């Protein structure tokens, strides 16, 4: 058998192949994919909140929009080119400009009203507290 027994029943036998293909694609695309996604994002979480930080240098905070809907977090905005003055000759242009948008699914629903965002030194840090509804509740097991 080419796939584990547990996957055999009621499952598309090609699902495993497709998964492998996806994995291989990711392996080869690697950093290319990561580079396309601007800004670069780091995500942390614990039981009570998610913290997102994004490297978005050169963006005016006025042009930055952070939205949260249920468990989808979106950061969008625009990076505008700097004024170099007239008659400037460009030797090197590695910094990119334009509109960007990134959405991320969070591990749980967050409380929209308690989300805080801070932009400092070109890094956006957003703290998203977990909504009370989505917090796990422990149920006491009674013994007889």
């Amino acid at each position: 058998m080419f796939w584990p027994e547990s996957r055999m029943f009621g499952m598309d036998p090609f699902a495993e192949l497709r998964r492998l293909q996806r994995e291989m694609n990711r392996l080869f695309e690697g950093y290319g994919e990561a580079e396309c996604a601007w800004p670069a994002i780091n995500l942390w979480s614990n039981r009570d909140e998610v913290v997102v930080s994004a490297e978005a240098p050169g963006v005016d905070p006025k042009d930055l929009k952070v939205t949260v809907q249920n468990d989808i977090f979106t950061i969008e905005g625009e990076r505008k080119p700097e004024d170099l003055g007239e008659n400037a000759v460009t030797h090197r242009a590695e910094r990119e400009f334009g509109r960007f948008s990134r959405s991320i699914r969070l591990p749980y629903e967050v409380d929209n009203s308690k989300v805080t965002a801070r932009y400092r030194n070109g890094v956006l840090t957003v703290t998203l507290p977990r909504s009370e509804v989505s917090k796990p509740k422990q149920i006491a097991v009674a013994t007889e």
Partner: protein
Amino acid sequence: MKENKQETAVETKKPAETSAVELTRDQPVFAPATDIAEREDSFVILCDLPGVDEKHVDITLEEGVLTILGYQDTATPADHEWLYRGYTPGVFRRAFTLGSEADPNKIRAKLAHGVLRLEIGKSEKAQPRKIPVQTE
């Protein structure tokens, strides 16, 4: 044409002994995205240094070689687990050869929203001088 000048804006690898500072740190070193433009009397360099405080930027211009060093704030939220890692904080380092035109006494640096803007004036002798032509 002006943009084909080889001596300007050519990236160089700096020998380790002249920039021993960052070698003592156990952090990854990245080359920040940089724009370089030249004007008649100055160079303008824009460098993306996200997460770098103005106190942690080191700019030197020695013998025509400009070196930019920036140390990112590597603090991570305490008591949290990694969910997704899109970037790693570290050290930004980039060096450019500007040639003898760049005047070390005429550097203006500004760091705003994680972008370093350097304006380096050209020395007097490098600036184009208009020579009046006399007619008889």
